Every structure is written in structure tokens, then in C-alpha cells.
């Protein structure tokens, strides 16, 4: 499980996050919603070590990982599908997926059956199977998004961070992505999901946090938040 306590982080002298506390219990799907620039991506970056937190604790299965380098955090079992996909454009789809399993292939995490997981990813995202030899840079935006998710899953993570997996996708693909997230949830994968489609995110999540200007503005079980008038007004559109 993942436990974020009083996290403070930012870029250089600019402080973005103020004392954020988020808890993601094992096997649960927790979502973090909020308007543009609220600090959602910054939160995930601090958790996975892409930026150094300035204060607070980040506990992964009880161990404080705040301040560790991102490769060490990954080796401890944290996978992060980052904002903007960040696939390895000059490598093939298969190579991208294998790199997701890098700690397993280099004896830094239990190896398990990497080939079987590769097949599982191709079952989960059939489009990737068709394009397994294609260079990732030549995939469509939606395909790259699926690749980024699949690549993160190849770690067999303890905790999976997903930053706007539906960004830039056509409505049908957005549905597909959420269907996949539901399947991962059924497999009891611990997930922290950042989403712009707040309604859809609260539909699949167990618990939700609302972020505003680098602070938490609210939290609660997903079905409660979904019906909270203030949340509805601010993030879900009043009518829906």
C-alpha cells in the first residue's frame, strides 16, 4: 500500500504542493481529481521520485521512499505511467514493454514469467500485439497511451500510478481505457489514478481526493464524492 503524509514539493523555489496526505490501501483504486494546474501530476512525480520532495513522508508498504532516486523507487515496486506517455520512440513496442520489466530482467526484482506477462499485455491491449515490431514513436496517441500503461504493468508493480491515461483519446478509446482499469482493479492491483474525466474516475474508484491549488479540498468514498453537490458543481458539471 501507499501512504503519502504531509507531502511538500515543487519546482526549484516554486512550491506547488502543500502538506498533501493521501492513502492508497492495498488492492484499492484511489483517484485524485482537480482542475488544471492543481498539482496532480506534481504529486505523482514526487511519489515516483521524478522530483525530490521537500518535506513529508511517502510510505511504500511501510518503508519511507521520499528522497530516493526514481530508479530505486521503481525497483521497490512502484510503477508510474507518466503524463504525456513518454514512450521510447526509437524502440519497438515489444522493447518498450521489456524495459517496463527491466528490474525483473536484471535480477533486481523477482523475475517471474516475463514472456507470459508480455502475452498478457497483448491480450489486454490487442492493438499492441498487431504492432509489436513497430517503433513506439510511430504509434498513434491512443496506442502510445496503451503502451505506457502496459509498460508500467510489466513491472508487476506493488502500486501503479496512472496520470491521465485517457488524455487525448477518442471517446470510444476512453471507454476502453476505463474498462481496462476496471479489469486491473478486479485483479486487485493497487492504483492511484489521476483523471480529467472526474465522473468516470469516481465511477470506477473506491475512494477519491479532490485537489485545488496544491491543497486537498476534499475526500471521501467515491460514490459519496460523486453525489457531493460541491464536487458536482466544480468538477462534474452541474447538470450531470
Amino acid at each position, binding site marked *: 500500500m501507499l501512504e503519502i503524509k504531509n507531502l511538500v514539493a515543487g519546482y526549484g523555489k516554486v512550491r506547488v504542493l502543500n502538506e498533501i496526505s493521501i492513502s492508497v490501501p492495498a488492492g484499492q483504486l484511489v483517484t485524485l481529481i482537480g482542475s488544471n494546474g492543481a498539482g496532480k501530476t506534481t504529486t505523482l512525480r514526487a511519489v*515516483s*521520485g*521524478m522530483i525530490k520532495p521537500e518535506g513529508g513522508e511517502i510510505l511504500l508498504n511501510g518503508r519511507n521512499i521520499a528522497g530516493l*532516486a*526514481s*530508479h530505486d523507487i*521503481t*525497483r521497490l515496486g512502484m*510503477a*508510474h505511467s*507518466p503524463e504525456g506517455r*513518454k*514512450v*521510447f*520512440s*526509437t*524502440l519497438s513496442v515489444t*522493447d518498450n514493454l*521489456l*524495459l*517496463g520489466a*527491466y*528490474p525483473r*530482467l*536484471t535480477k*533486481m*526484482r523477482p523475475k517471474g514469467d516475463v514472456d507470459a506477462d508480455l502475452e498478457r499485455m497483448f491480450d489486454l491491449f490487442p492493438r499492441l500485439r498487431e504492432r509489436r515490431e513497430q*517503433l513506439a*514513436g*510511430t504509434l498513434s496517441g491512443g496506442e502510445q497511451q496503451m503502451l505506457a500503461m502496459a*509498460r508500467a504493468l510489466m*513491472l508487476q508493480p506493488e502500486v501503479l500510478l496512472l496520470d491521465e491515461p485517457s488524455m487525448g483519446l477518442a471517446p470510444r478509446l476512453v471507454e476502453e481505457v476505463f474498462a481496462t482499469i476496471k479489469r486491473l482493479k478486479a485483479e486487485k492491483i493497487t492504483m492511484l489514478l489521476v483523471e480529467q474525466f472526474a465522473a468516470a474516475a469516481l465511477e470506477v474508484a473506491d475512494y477519491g481526493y479532490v485537489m485545488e491549488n496544491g491543497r486537498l479540498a476534499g475526500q471521501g468514498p467515491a460514490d459519496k464524492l460523486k453525489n457531493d453537490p460541491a464536487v458536482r458543481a466544480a468538477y462534474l458539471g452541474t447538470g450531470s
Partner: protein
Amino acid sequence: MQNFLQILVSGISVGMIYGVIAFGYQLTFATSKTLNFGQGEALTLGALVGFTTVNFLIGMSLGTFWAYILALPLVFAFGLVQGSIVELLGVRQATKIKSEAGWIMATIALGIIFKNIAENVWGKDPLKFPSPVSEAPLTIGGVNVRPMEIIIVVGALAMMLAVELFNRRSIYGKAVVATSNDRDAAGLMGINTSRVITFSYALSSLSAALAGVLIAPITLTGANMGAALGLKAFAVAIIGGLSSGLGVVVGGLILGITESLTGFYFDTGYKDVPGLILLLLVLSFKPAGLFGKAAIKKV
């Protein structure tokens, strides 16, 4: 015509040397967007370490050929260590303090130090590197080819092919390519990207050291042998494109051949001019190098 072919042959071997050194520039540029401006000195030291080792082994009554072959692993190991030192002591410290041009100064400074070490250990006078193969030229189709020139071409291609295979086939090689693509994302895969960058500096110096022992038998070996080679290979790296694998071979051949053509048809004194003119032209018209763009997607 015969003359022309003859010139072509000598241009090719020198060109391949430029290619290997330039390949070394590419290796570090890919992962870190920085270069070792002491690459010429890495070549010098590689050649001199090779010189001492080969002579030592010959002293152990080994034949020159086997002495040369057995010396190679030591020269490579030396190159790896020397390159790691450049990265750890120079480049990393400069990038840590976020100094824009710090790595340039640091690698130049380390290059000067390495050259001083070479002068003190091996002296300032040129040395004769024992040739592993016969120095008598073979006559192929009326053209004289020195056996060492064949070894240069084969050795240079083998080196580049080996790195290419490593990058494509092994998970560690893929980690290097991933770091070149997107360092942040590579870190998220669990790849220690600082270590990858140190490794690419190590490999870069290894290429230079290999170039050193390849060229040493057909030229004079000494503390000053690397400076001009390093500079010209830099031109080749720019001409061929810092991000294109194939470009450096073609760039190296273009420079090597134009040099020997100028040397023969005009004046050896002007031998360096066409390459530098070519460099200036490429910089003004195709700053990404002649092959820069197209090759980025293919690597």
C-alpha cells in the same frame, strides 16, 4: 586511375579511424548531450598503454601478432576506466552544479592532464609501435594495400557492429537506448541513468583507445598523436550527425578521402583544409549533419 585508387585506399583507413573516434563522440552525446573533448587524449593513452603492453609481451618472447591480440583486452579495460574517470570527475561534477558549459571546460582540462601524464610517462619523442602484421604491402589489382590498413577497417567495423548488437539485443543495451530517448522515463523503468551515462563515457574512451592501437602501427606513437585526430573526428561527428550511427562512417570516409586527394593533387600542406571547409559548409547548411534527421528514427 591507379594513383586514384591508391589514394582512395589510404583515405579509407584514415577515414575509418576518424569514424571510430567520432562514434565515441556519438555514444556520450546520445545519452547525456555532452561530449568528451579529451577524446584525442583517450586515443593517445590507449595507444601508449598498448605500446607498453605489446612490448612487454614481446619481451616475454611472444610473437608480435599475438602480443598485439593479447594486449587488446588490457587496452579496452584501460579505456573503460579512463572514460569513467572523465565522466565521474569531470562531466558529472559540472552538470551537478548546473553549469551550462562546465563539462566542456572539465573535459578539455582532463584532456590536458592526460596529455601531461603521457608526456611524463612515455616522453615527448615519437615511438615506433611494433606492427602486428607484415609491413610489406599486398598488391591487390595493382593497388598497394598495407595489411594493417585492412585490420583498421575490419577492427573499426567490428567495434561499431558490436555496440549496435549490444544495443539491439541485450536488455542493458536497450536501457542505454531508453536513456538516450527519454532520461526521466528511463529512470521510471528502474534504470540507473547516471550509471548508463558513465558507461557511455567508458565505451566512448574504449573506442578512442581502439582507434589508438589501430592507427599506431602505421603512424608514430606519442603524447601528441591524438590531438589532431580528436579534432578532425569532431568535425566528422558534426558532418555525419551526432545522432546518426551510420553518419560517422560516411563522414569519416569523406574526410579521409578528401584529405588524401588534396595531399596528392595539391599539396600535403593543405591536406587539412577541405575537411574544415566541409565542416563549415555542413554547419551552415545542415547543422544536424548530413545524415542527422533521417537516421534519428532508424537507430
